[in-house]
């Protein structure tokens, strides 16, 4: 069965609404895009949408109680919530380095979760 999926291209202020038609998962036609970037965007968003996930994890003994982290590369969109859940129980010990690996190969994606800032230990 031929089905239509709508995507809004995010690559420029035009924000084209791109229509993608597929049959049994096979992309047949893309229209509504004003340039080639829009077509590529819609196909990627249909076949393999990915997002870089950013959140925070707990830190013991730091100048702040949490440190921001991010996946070192985009992960499949359907895993975004799971990535955040998997990090909910993580607690690091200060000092934390910038780019420190918090969780390697998260959910078997081959992507590491790393810190995005250094966090010094609290001096008392």
């Amino acid at each position: 069965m031929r089905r239509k999926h709508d995507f809004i291209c995010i690559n420029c202020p035009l924000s084209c609404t791109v229509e993608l038609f597929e049959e049994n998962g096979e992309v047949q036609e893309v229209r509504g895009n004003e340039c080639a970037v829009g077509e590529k965007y819609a196909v990627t968003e249909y076949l393999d949408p990915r997002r870089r996930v950013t959140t925070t994890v707990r830190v013991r003994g730091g100048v702040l109680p949490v440190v921001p982290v991010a996946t070192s590369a985009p992960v499949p969109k359907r895993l975004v919530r799971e990535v955040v859940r998997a990090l909910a129980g993580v607690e690091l010990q200060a000092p934390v380095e910038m780019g420190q690996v918090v969780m390697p190969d998260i959910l078997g994606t081959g992507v590491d979760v790393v810190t995005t800032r250094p966090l010094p230990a609290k001096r008392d």
Partner: protein
Amino acid sequence: MTKILRPDAVVIGAGPAGLGAALAAREAGLEEIFLLERDFELGGILPQCIHDGFGSIVFDQVLTGPEYAQRFIDKVERSGIEVFLDTMVLELRSDRSLVAVNSRDGVLRMEPGAVVLAMGCRERTRHQVLIPGYRPAGVICAGAAQRYINIEGLMPGRRVVILGSGDIGLIMARRFTLEGAEVEGVYEIMDHPGGLTRNLVQCLHDFDIPLHLSHTVTFIHGRKRVEAVTVAKVNENRKPIPGTERLVECDTLVLSVGLIPENELSKKAGVVLHPATGGPVVDELMETSVEGIFACGNVVCVFDLVDYVTFTAEVAGRGAAEFVQGRRRWRGEVPVRPGRNVRFVVPQRLRCLDREVELYFRVQRPERSVRVRVLVDGRVVHSRKARMVRPPEMVRASIPAGALNEGVREVVVEVTPDEKEA
């Protein structure tokens, strides 16, 4: 009597603007630069902006806020710039003298060669949007909610309504959702979203959070804590339409209703502000109406990209150095005026007239297939096609070196329909 410190330059605020300005002033040869920051660390708002999307122009790379800040912090730490943390500037005068205070040094008096204003902006609050109702806990600005969650590690609420679809509101809709809260919806009084398309898609659509355009909050319920809000559809004059009210239960109302440049210090120093930007009127060196006081970043006007903040900071930092070194010469006074479909332009005037000038402006209304043009006394010196311009996205244009001289009367920036395409 407190000793008076006389550094070459004082930069007020150590967010992206202040960091960039201090580094640029240093690179331009200033020896003693003081960077004054009221928070306990450098970076300004960036440490709490943990999402990515920063730096695609400056670094040709997409970074998170903390990563963008760290690149500048690392440089500042190696630069010999003297950093004063937990330090609040209380007063700035038109002769550039200032009073600051912190718990280590007490009261600090300074008479710097130049001052760079880099205080950024702050959020419009509930009192500026005038929502009737009680005064319960749980009404919070989006940036404040962001600070609670991303810096303090605290959750401000569990069931959230967001008023305003600016970028911070959209980003917080996603952030609250990922932290386990339920975001009932985003309500926007205008008939178009306020934020970037990227954020609409990745913060709302990805998480099935509804966006209600032409809607507003008309009442806040709850005595101690927010218990619900009344939302209603608005007409073309943005007035609520009777009969469209709906009660939405929630414990938190997040406001993302705009940003205002923070210019209390500037005003005390007699710096002239522009009515359309809310920030200082500046020239091509980012020098304000008060000699030797420069300004950059969101204190001048709210930029949507940190990259532009950094660019203006570098101009201001170099400008401050030129001034202190006695190299800054005014050759005239040329106003930069907004023309067709342009709301405002920064800088608003030109005085040195000896260099290429980068202009930043916002349009009044969305328009397709246009030309962005810069005219010097009616002569086109810059013309570029743009497929689309929209009010939320700042536009850049430039005046090439050599296009200006003492005899020029005005520069006009305009957006015109692209005739070739029409």
